[in-house]
């Protein structure tokens, strides 16, 4: 047996990621082995069909750590707010 250490992180969702997840924000406890943004998206996919749908094509979901754009391989350690959203269509 081994114990899983967890951290609590604030997640925010926008546009169709928000609609599919069904939440605009939540606080989640993330296992320690979730190191990167890609790990986090993969772990979220396992949390239910809403998440599986929102992250079905993780390559097109963008992320921001503490309001800065990041790539999937960015480490999430130390971030207090992680956002997931589709490619931007402003302007």
């Amino acid at each position, binding site marked *: 047996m081994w114990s899983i250490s967890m951290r609590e992180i604030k997640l*925010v969702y*926008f*546009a*169709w990621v*928000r609609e599919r997840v069904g939440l605009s924000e939540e606080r989640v406890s993330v296992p320690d082995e979730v190191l990167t943004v890609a790990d986090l998206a993969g772990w979220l996919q396992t949390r239910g069909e809403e998440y599986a749908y929102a992250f079905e094509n993780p390559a097109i979901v963008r992320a*921001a750590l503490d*309001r*800065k*754009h990041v790539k999937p391989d960015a480490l999430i350690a130390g971030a207090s707010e992680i*956002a997931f*959203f*589709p*490619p*931007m*269509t*402003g*302007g």
Partner: protein
Amino acid sequence: MTTPRLIIRIQPEPFDAAAEIEALSRMGDDVGAVTSFTGYCRSEGGRLAALELEHYPGMAEEEIASVVVEASTRWSLLGATVIHRHGKMVPGDGIVLVATASSHRTASFDAAHFIMDYLKTRAPFWKKEHRADGTSGDWVEAKAVDDALAERWKA
């Protein structure tokens, strides 16, 4: 280089493009050029009744500020104003205004174009369509061409 006057606003209210352009042109006797770009909500041939713009508060301001500051390091600007609306807009409504003032024309043209191209791919805004037939439409899809247009400025 004097520090340019930078104005960045994210707001649900309509903006007065004419007044903003006028204010930039009145900044002093060294303003020789003002370029402005206004993006409007379109009906797409009557297909759309409205666009709804969602944004990421805080990050939207920060990303636009960083794009504007980068423009002001690349070109000699006297001032720049960027206003981006969120919320529901109908065809004809202004969505975004980018206006830049400089002594010479190339700086204001290039800086305004750069800001718009970068804003398109970096500012956290998303558009949802409301169809003219009353049904809720799709989220507008990002265009690969917009990424290519932003990449151009790295050359």
